[in-house]
């Protein structure tokens, strides 16, 4: 009896394995099976993407798409491993963080020829158009959305305290932001004006933003290399960078909970939605979470402040996108999926669900909310180039150092905030790091 049972189990196991193998091959009639890896998966986002892919499959019965969405924390490693091992993968999400690395390693398919006849690109925003191709004219991604910072604030707190933001423009400076954050702070009541994220790329809170604004766009090496000055040295060698760190220190000491030195993204967002902090600086992907967790009318968004002296701020351009691995066996079919996802209507729908800035100027025609409400600060920033300069967007090999820099600068900044490190020494170290990278990999030669 036992032998019989063992035999049955073995046969079942073999049958199961064969079934799985058959499933992973192409087959299933005439259908082409594409594997699609999502990098920033979440319950709602994956569902939104899956719904669009279902729509595509209904219109294209010869293609079936298997969407894989590894856990967020390990998705980068998982996708990198798949690319290195050349596992079947036909479509993938390529973030601006990883794009330079993927291109440098030859892992992405050059979409230049496909783009030649792609009419939808006509309505791409200027920011996307200017950063679509690399310096040699290659195109590796179909843009999916842009991320940009803005200020989120508690409307109810502002009313209660009789505070008002200056109109966006010349008066709306980092100093004005600090004054409001300070006025909101009342530790006795457990209220703080600012939710600082000290534990995850915290140099992007004030250090880099203030430094670029204080330095002034004209003093940057070029619009493609905002991290270097006209002299070809790192911006971290300037007084403007010191001003950036001092701002971070001021906001931490006077306006944020002591604990925020170690906060990650989730802590920062929770502190705002749970009524501990009155303001934070974040990308638009927080909108969805606040819509779900906060009462309408209690919070709103505002454009980024500018420098009090230069009267400008430099915002990063660029986008995250969809791409295909260089080794895909189905480039034609994969391109059809990319072309579908990149179209103005589909992109607007996806961006609304996910909460990122759409890549088409016509997005508001499909989703009205992009021209009003929580997204309005972007419209203001994009339409006031006298205050908001845009930079970056080109995938230079040395920019992949951002990931390493983000981690090591967190350690340094935490030590500065806790009085355990010297600002000048840290800035010197940062400057050396970036200059070494640029020297090794070369700068922009377009």
């Amino acid at each position, binding site marked *: 009896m036992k032998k019989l049972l063992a035999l049955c189990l073995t046969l079942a196991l073999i049958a199961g394995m064969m079934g799985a193998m058959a499933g992973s091959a192409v087959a299933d009639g005439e259908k082409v099976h594409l594997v699609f890896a999502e990098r920033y998966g979440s319950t709602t986002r994956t569902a939104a993407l899956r719904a669009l892919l279902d729509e595509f499959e209904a219109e294209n019965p010869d293609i079936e798409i298997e969407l894989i969405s590894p856990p967020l924390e390990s998705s980068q490693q998982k996708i990198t491993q798949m690319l290195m091992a050349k596992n079947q993968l036909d479509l993938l999400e390529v973030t601006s963080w990883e794009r330079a690395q993927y291109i440098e390693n030859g892992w992405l398919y050059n979409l230049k020829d496909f783009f030649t006849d792609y009419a939808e690109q006509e309505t791409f925003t200027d920011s996307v158009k200017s950063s679509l191709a690399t310096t040699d004219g290659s195109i590796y991604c179909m843009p999916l959305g842009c991320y940009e910072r803005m200020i989120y604030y508690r409307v109810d707190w502002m009313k209660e305290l009789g505070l008002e933001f200056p109109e966006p423009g010349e008066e709306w400076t980092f100093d004005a932001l600090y004054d409001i954050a300070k006025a909101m702070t009342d530790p006795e009541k457990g209220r703080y004006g600012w939710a600082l994220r000290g534990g995850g790329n915290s140099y992007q809170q004030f250090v880099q933003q203030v430094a670029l604004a204080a330095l002034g766009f004209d003093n940057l090496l070029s619009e493609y290399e905002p991290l270097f000055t006209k002299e070809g040295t790192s911006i971290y060698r300037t007084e403007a960078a010191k001003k950036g760190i001092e701002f971070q220190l001021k906001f931490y000491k006077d306006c944020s909970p002591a*604990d925020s030195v170690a906060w990650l993204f989730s802590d920062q967002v929770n502190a705002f939605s749970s009524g501990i902090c009155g303001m934070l600086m974040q990308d638009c992907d927080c909108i969805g979470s606040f819509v779900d967790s906060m009462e309408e009318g209690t919070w709103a968004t505002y454009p980024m402040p500018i420098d009090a002296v230069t009267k400008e701020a430099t915002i990063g351009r660029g986008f995250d996108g969809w791409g295909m691995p260089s080794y895909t066996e189905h480039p034609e079919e994969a391109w059809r999926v990319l072309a579908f996802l990149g179209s103005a209507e589909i992109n607007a729908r996806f961006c609304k669900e996910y909460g990122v800035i759409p890549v088409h100027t016509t997005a508001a025609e499909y989703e009205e909310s992009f021209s009003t409400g929580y997204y309005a600060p972007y419209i203001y920033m994009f339409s006031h180039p006298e205050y908001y300069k845009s930079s970056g967007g080109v995938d230079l090999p040395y920019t992949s150092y951002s990931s390493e820099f983000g981690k090591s600068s*967190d350690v340094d900044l935490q*030590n500065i905030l806790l009085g*355990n490190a010297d600002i000048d020494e840290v800035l010197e170290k940062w400057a050396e790091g970036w200059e070494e990278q640029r020297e090794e990999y070369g700068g922009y030669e377009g």
Partner: protein
Amino acid sequence: MRSNKKNLARNTKRDRLFIFFMLAPGILLVALFCYYPFLSGIPYAFKRYSLLNLSRTKWIGLKNFETLFTEKEFLQTIPNTIKWVFISLILQFTIGFMLALFLKNKFRGRGIYQGVIFFPWAVSGFLIGILWRWIYNAAYGPLNALLIALGLVNPANPIGFLSNLDTAFPSAIATNVWYGIAFFTITIQAALQGVPTELYEASEVDGAGKVYQFFKITVPYIRPVLILSTLLRSIWIFNFADLIYSLTRGGPGGTTEIMTSYMLNLIIFQSNIGKASAVGLIIIVLLLIWSTVYLKLSRFEEEGDF
């Protein structure tokens, strides 16, 4: 007689073959998923190998090790790791042992109490980090709320358990202790069940007290279990980077960074496989030395099989 010998030889041969086939799947799996990645990873430690740019991969000799031993961040992980392992181990072992002795006695609700103690062991290290990160949060964490309610902490100045340079590491160790107690309780409790009650009864007749019984009967009898469990646990604690990653990410200012979490950071944030492999190799060497010295000092071989 000769035929018997022949049969015996054939049986032995058949037995050996049987043993080999029974062991083969296990050996194969361990070789494939443990030794192969380990051995194939060694050469990377001597290479410049970064996923950020694979075209610049090349042999660089001991450069990765040289860089590591001149980096303040890495050097800081050495004392951190020693403290992390020894303080956690001693506290986990002591509390775990006490609970195991306590649970040896029969009392009402023992099953529920056991379940509560064993529960943390069933939770992943990563999840524990997230859970305790919330508990420790100064702004909305329950621990501060409790201390404030008890009047021990000023509401305007809550304790930043994970954000203060002085409290972050002890807080991380406290979390690790909470997690690891269950392991020792389970293991030691199981070992205690094997101690014959006759020994205690006989010693009582001879007038031995509880303390004497503990040191002369209990401890010697379960000594092999204690040696092996502490050795295994020390290695696991050494490698318990998932807790650090989800609890503090090594912060603030690198104060809670241990060697394994540093290695993890090199892979996750820097894609620097070469340098991470060098750290991995250092870890392997340290653990080999530690295991050998520990087993020698504890005279483990003299204990025989158990």
